């Protein structure tokens, strides 16, 4: 069975991001989401400093690509911030988190309309299953106190 290299990397990302689901929870159980986010950012910068001398960085980047990559970091982290804000503004985790996990829908729409990507039938089925799976997986098990209410 041939496994494409992009899938291997996607699965590595999935594992790393999946582990952060636990570490983030352990962090916000101990400190405020604001402080947790701040140290998350510090770690991102530290990682960038570690990566910086180890790879051949291309400093002849087109300004457009440079700024789009920077904007990418802002969009992603701002998304994390707004997801925290949704919870702080009284949104129930059982609704907010599965709702936020619908973000791939927008990426798919943009990829098909703007990037002209095409999908095979099994991939279309896979997307539907992935969206449903992400929503189901992000449902928290109700605590004993929640059950009592």
């Amino acid at each position, binding site marked *: 069975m041939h*496994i494409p*290299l*992009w*899938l291997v*990397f996607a*699965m590595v990302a999935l*594992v790393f991001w999946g*582990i952060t*689901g*636990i*570490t*983030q929870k352990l*962090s916000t159980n*101990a*400190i*405020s989401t*604001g*402080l947790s986010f*701040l*140290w*998350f950012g510090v*770690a*991102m910068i530290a*990682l*960038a400093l570690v*990566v910086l001398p180890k*790879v051949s960085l291309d400093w002849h*980047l087109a300004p457009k*690509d440079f700024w*789009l*990559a*920077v*904007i990418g970091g802002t*969009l*992603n*982290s701002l998304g994390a*911030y*707004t997801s925290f804000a*949704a919870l702080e*503004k*009284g949104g129930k985790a059982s609704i907010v988190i599965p709702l*936020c996990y619908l*973000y*791939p*829908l*927008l990426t798919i729409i*943009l*990829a098909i309309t703007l*990037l002209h*990507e095409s*999908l095979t039938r099994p*991939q279309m089925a*896979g*997307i539907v299953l*992935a969206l449903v799976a*992400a*929503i189901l*997986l992000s*449902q928290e*098990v109700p605590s004993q106190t929640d059950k009592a209410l």
Partner: protein
Amino acid sequence: MVTPPVKTARKRIPAWLVFSLLTIVLWGVWGALTKVISADIDAYMNQVLFAIGVVPVMAIVLLSGRLSGGISRKRGIFYAFITGVLGGTGNIAFFMAFSEGGKASVVVPATSVSPLVTVIQGYFLLKESASGCQKAGLLLAMAAIYLLSL
């Protein structure tokens, strides 16, 4: 004839819903944007520039002043730092998936089932029980990854 009172006050959209929808837009656009730039930027370079992009949001959080509270500062900071390192390493792999030809419309939904790992870890490490929904989600996620690879 008595006319019923006309409701003049418009129904307000709850703030949490606005923030949730904003999250979908921000993350959804990021997925497509990453695919566009991955053709021209090395995955490691992408992560360096990503980190620069995080700084303005850190400034917003810093200015919000909501940094106090919590039960164990040392422990919380340690896990937040680990989260950043793991998240950033995951980003590099995500960027590489695009560099290797992965489509945004496939890679993004495939990686969006990452709570699969969280649920499995929670079960084995934190002894958290998985709900029926989560168990069904685990099976669907695995089927989805297989289908997305075809």
